[in-house]
């Protein structure tokens, strides 16, 4: 649902349509997402439209930044390189 909302606002029925979930289950799920601040929704007549809360993307971005410090990314590169060296060693021994 979040992936669908990432490409733009959608009505509840649009969100429910590709899912094999009952409408009440979908509504409950959306309520939880809204409760946690990930999405917001508004009702016009009988149609409820949901959209991703833009602030969430900044938070998601921050999450990525927090978990992927340059220190970590540098050591990812280091490990990739060690594995390359190891493979080359194995090739030489083979």
């Amino acid at each position: 649902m979040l992936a669908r909302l990432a490409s733009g606002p959608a009505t509840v029925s649009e969100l429910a349509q590709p899912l094999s979930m009952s409408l009440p289950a979908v509504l409950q799920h959306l309520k939880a997402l809204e409760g946690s601040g990930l999405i917001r929704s508004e009702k016009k007549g009988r149609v409820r439209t949901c959209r991703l809360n833009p602030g969430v993307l900044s938070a998601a971005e921050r999450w990525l930044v927090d978990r992927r410090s340059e220190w970590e990314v540098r050591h990812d590169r280091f490990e990739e390189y060690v594995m390359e060296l190891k493979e080359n060693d194995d090739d030489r021994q083979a």
Partner: protein
Amino acid sequence: MTDKLDLVLERTIDAPIDLVWAAYTNPEHLKRWFAPRPYEVTECELDLRPGGIFRIRMVGPDGFDTGHGVPGCVLEVIEGRKLAWTSALGPGYRPNLAGEGCESFPMTAVITFEDAGDGKTAYRAVSLHKDEADREKHEQMGFHDGWGTVAGQLEEFAQSLRTNA
């Protein structure tokens, strides 16, 4: 040591300890992984003894070039087990100007290696900073690479949402 000041990383890598040590300490190897792409290390000196030089020259496609660079200082070497260096000091322990070391802020790196059996190596890499602001600077370096690109794309996307909202 606190979470607020340091970046701590502990991992086990599926390679024997001598190979891991060589990849971390041999300047020719270091050149291959130290810089965040598309940046490149074109020169590297690492003299593996206390007081020895640690110097890198980093260049980028956008004309970025650290030039000769202000060298850092090796603090401790236990062959195959431990390397500690700092950018706060230069070779022979002579103090650097603040923020002129191998990085744009003073930092000390302590890396320890341990044989984890089965041809694997456990290692721990700690980066120590003088304050939280420096730790944050370090965290956010190099974000043109990998997740940095993702974060950039997310930001653009978030902005497009805001514009459309």
